[in-house]
């Protein structure tokens, strides 16, 4: 009898913790769903025609968003992937890079599915001052290099 009551008390205690934990998760998801950007943005500061790049990126069904900056000799693209496409992150990066390089053979193409790059590229577009852009792009490129 006593034992049963103990177990009950135990279960109730555990359930309380259980619910608290779940609510934390729900809260986190709600909080985060607000800041998920999507769409395809292109910022062209060069003489190149960006239509081809847009076509490549928009036609790729595995992407949820893509942010592209053309600046002088650089073409920098940050992409976000669909959840299950993330397994093939490296492969997708390589494919896109190849496609873009084919379209723009004279540009230095950088493609990354890293969310840091995506975040920074977004900031880059909002930057009014064009002077810093070159520097920032170099920095992002070195960050990507650091990984390997």
């Amino acid at each position, binding site marked *: 009898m006593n*034992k049963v*009551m*103990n*177990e009950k*008390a*135990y279960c109730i205690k555990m359930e309380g913790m259980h619910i608290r934990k779940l609510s934390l998760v729900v809260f986190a998801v709600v909080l985060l769903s607000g800041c998920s950007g999507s769409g395809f943005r292109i910022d062209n500061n060069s003489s190149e025609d960006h239509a081809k790049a847009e076509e490549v990126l928009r036609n790729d069904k595995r992407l949820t968003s893509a942010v592209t900056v053309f600046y002088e000799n650089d073409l920098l693209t940050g992409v976000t992937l669909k959840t299950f496409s993330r397994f093939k992150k490296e492969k997708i990066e390589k494919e896109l890079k190849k496609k873009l390089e084919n379209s723009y053979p004279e540009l230095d193409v950088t493609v990354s599915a890293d969310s840091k790059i995506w975040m920074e590229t977004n900031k880059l577009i909002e930057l009014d001052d064009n002077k810093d852009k070159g520097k920032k792009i170099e920095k992002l490129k070195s960050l990507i290099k650091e990984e390997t």
Partner: protein
Amino acid sequence: MVARGLLTFKTTPSIVATGVTAGPLEKKSQFVDKFDKIYEDERCEAKTNEHGHAKMMEDACMIALSKVDSVPSDADFMLIGDLINQMTPSNFAAATVGIPYIGLFSACATSVSSLLMAALLTETGMSKCAIAGASSQHNAVERQFRYPNEYGAQKPETAQWTVTAAGVAAVTPYKKGFPSIECGTIGCVIDLGMTDPLNMGAAMAPAAADTLTRHLTGHNKDVKDYDVIMTGDLGKTGFELYKKLAGNQGIDVTKNFRDAGKEFYGADPSFLSGASGAGCSAAIFLTEVIDKMRAGDYKRVLLIATGALLSPLSFQQGDTIPCIAHAIELTMK
């Protein structure tokens, strides 16, 4: 079968005083009011757990002696033990108290084995006052036998909690009005191949059941002769197993059976299967049982303390856990 390991005391030495000290967590025990001293600090204000352990033992000795208006120089022998490396806490306590000392080790069964030894010395007439007891300190035991105290390991429901407590009794020749030691049984080491140190109750239960049957047949007694048959620290799981094993031997286990480990912390589920440790049985036997005997509630009791004789080394080398149980019979004439 020739009855072996049986002890009968013709002079029936008496337990004239007890001293029980406990740590702060033992306030959760349902027997807390009966303890003589509760420390507010788990190390008893000492620098290390082991020093606190020794201090707890010392204080328990002094309390027991003071209850019979004695000082350490009045005592002839000191028979105590604990679970830590080579019993250093007991050794240090004995060094401070300064009574001729023999360290005893039967793991958690030391509480009863020391009483039996004290009774023997008294029986021979060579001891007018002997100190017997055992102690354990949770932190010190935990870090030696299991993991560091702050390590997060999930304990199953069969795991027991080592108590921080010391229990000491002063044993003298027969004195009217005090519980006296009539007989006892020295246990055999029983090993039924249990290896799980988080289920010590299951390892110790066969030893307890074996000693119980040997005591009953050896001394020609029946369960009905006792007001209570109390085991030391089998815990909830071990106690069930022990009753089952004893029941298989044709012993009526339906009433008068109690377990100190199971009852120590009441029904608090955070202590899982219950309490364990040499201090557990010593503290409960020397408070709850002795008090009830002196109050006249119990006339005849059988105390069986169980001990798991493992070491961190033997466990890590994959050995089984050999166990022992000693029994002592107290009467109130």
